[in-house]
């Protein structure tokens, strides 16, 4: 029982981490990014390559992979998203365009990964030593993953809610039309938000790769789960993403343990549907 709680929290922690990235991209930059999960998978493979060829510890790999994720997302925003933002007559039109373009991007990233790594399951063994937590043995890499997720989430919440810079980002999320009246550069805020989202996806990828197997085509499921967490938590809400992410991880682990591992996605979908019907604006969303 306790073992499942711990495993659920670990999984949920990573979901929360990546969902924060997506919620920032969607809430502030207003880009619905369907290639988000493929960014995560790309980071998984990046860490794998660093670990297996150069023997670089995944924690150190963060220092390489995360800035890369930031830079790549910034580039994607400048080259692909910015022209769409400029030409979109309304928020709705931008949503459709961004969904379509990132859907194309998903296949492009997946194609690149398939060429380099093939379609098989990949994993590596790092810190796979059992650690005793309240009487149950938990793999060290999972504990580390949970710790990393929590620390990064805490830093992000602090920055967003306690710094001037975070307040500017939240202002753009709340009122994109009025923010410029207060001297906020919305374009820059959107760009930064999209890049931070990419950096968080990369962080999530590094963390996930420490304890899970991954495939080049697995991005869709990550995107899906991150999207569900974002909606469960309320669009643009970082605390919501954290709570909903942990919840989803727990649900998934318990379904896998007590019902059937093959039905986890169905369970996630059920939670999603029930919540959509009961609270269409999410747990923390405003009506």
């Amino acid at each position: 029982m306790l073992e499942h709680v711990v495993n659920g929290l670990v999984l949920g922690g990573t979901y929360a981490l990546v969902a924060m990235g997506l919620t920032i991209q969607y809430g502030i930059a207003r880009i619905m990014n369907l290639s988000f999960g493929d960014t995560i998978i790309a980071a998984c493979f990046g860490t794998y390559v660093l670990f297996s060829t150069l023997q670089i510890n995944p924690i150190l790999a963060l220092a390489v992979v995360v800035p890369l994720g930031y830079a790549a997302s910034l580039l994607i925003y400048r080259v692909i998203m910015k022209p769409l933002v400029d030409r979109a007559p309304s928020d709705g039109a931008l949503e459709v365009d961004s969904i379509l373009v990132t859907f194309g991007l998903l296949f492009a990233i997946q194609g690149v990964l398939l060429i380099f790594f093939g379609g098989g399951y990949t994993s590596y063994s790092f810190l796979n030593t059992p650690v005793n937590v309240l009487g149950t043995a938990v793999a060290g890499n999972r504990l580390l993953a949970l710790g990393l997720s929590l620390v990064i989430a805490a830093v992000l919440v602090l920055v967003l809610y306690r710094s001037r810079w975070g307040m500017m980002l939240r202002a753009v999320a709340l009122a994109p039309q009025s923010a410029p009246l207060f001297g906020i550069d919305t374009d820059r805020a959107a760009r930064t938000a999209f890049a931070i989202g990419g950096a968080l996806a990369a962080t999530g990828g590094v963390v996930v790769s420490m304890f899970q197997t991954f495939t080049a085509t697995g991005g869709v499921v990550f995107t899906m789960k991150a999207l569900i967490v974002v909606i469960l938590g309320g669009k643009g809400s970082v605390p919501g993403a954290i709570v909903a992410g942990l919840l989803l991880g727990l649900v998934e682990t318990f379904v896998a343990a007590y019902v059937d591992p093959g039905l986890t996605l169905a369970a996630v979908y059920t939670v999603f549907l029930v919540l959509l019907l009961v609270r269409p604006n999410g747990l923390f969303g405003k009506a």
Partner: protein
Amino acid sequence: MTMKPSIAFPVAAAVLAVLAAAPLFIPDYWTGVLLGMTGYVTLATAWALFSGPTRYVSLATVAFFGVGAYVVAVLNEALPYPLVLLSAAGIGMILALAVGLSTLRLAGVYFVIFTFGLAELVRQTVSWWEVNITYTMGRYVFLPFEGRHIYWQLLALAAVTLLISWAIGRSRLGLALKAIGDDEVVAAHAGIDVTRVKLLLFVISATLITLVGAIQAPRWTYIEPSIVFNPTVSFMTLIMALLGGPMRLWGPALGAIPLFLLFEWLSVSFPDHFSIILGLLFILIVFVMPQGVLAKIDDIRKGGRA
């Protein structure tokens, strides 16, 4: 595209007759190509039926397509063929109703997200069911059809789909759909039952897509979830409809024909790079021709006159 019905119908009938007679004169390989092309023409037209005017992008084409194929795989030895097709259409319809009822009352983005994962959900659930309940993984379809028989069925379905699309475009329903696409709030105030119209169209579109999968099932002979729930199908349908222009009757069909030929050639010539090329091509289409090729041609014509 602006031909009067009195001329357009005989022309369309003549084209249909030529297409139907084609397999009697051309080699089997080209019948196969025609078959695939007709399949995608139908998929793209059926997709655009709902997603074009409402602008609700459905990413779940392959979920319905796969369900159709799988129903045929499960039932092909238990029931006569027409009943198998009917069952497939019925199951596709029920699935569409369930998806539509739960998501179409909400903002469009929820619908998109839901359809995005639907194919994966259906694939995993079917796999789980086969492994744990029926203890079979992979099924065989034994139906006495050759390529041309399947082709004829698909051609008939394509004609029906285009006819439905034409009829809806001229009806009150079509007007209601266009109003919803322009502004949902205004449409609701004008007395349109927005949810009902969307649901109706989604179900029609999804049922047609299910039938394409069901009719094409005998082509594979051997069927398993990873074959029939291939996400590339959703992607190709979307890109074809977008290239042609999802708001026009003939748009999706005109997008499907050249892209299908291009994809045939690409998948043979660059099997490893197929998905990258597909992705980049798609991004390009969204950028250059957001309304599709037909609208672009109209623009150029108008620009020339002005």
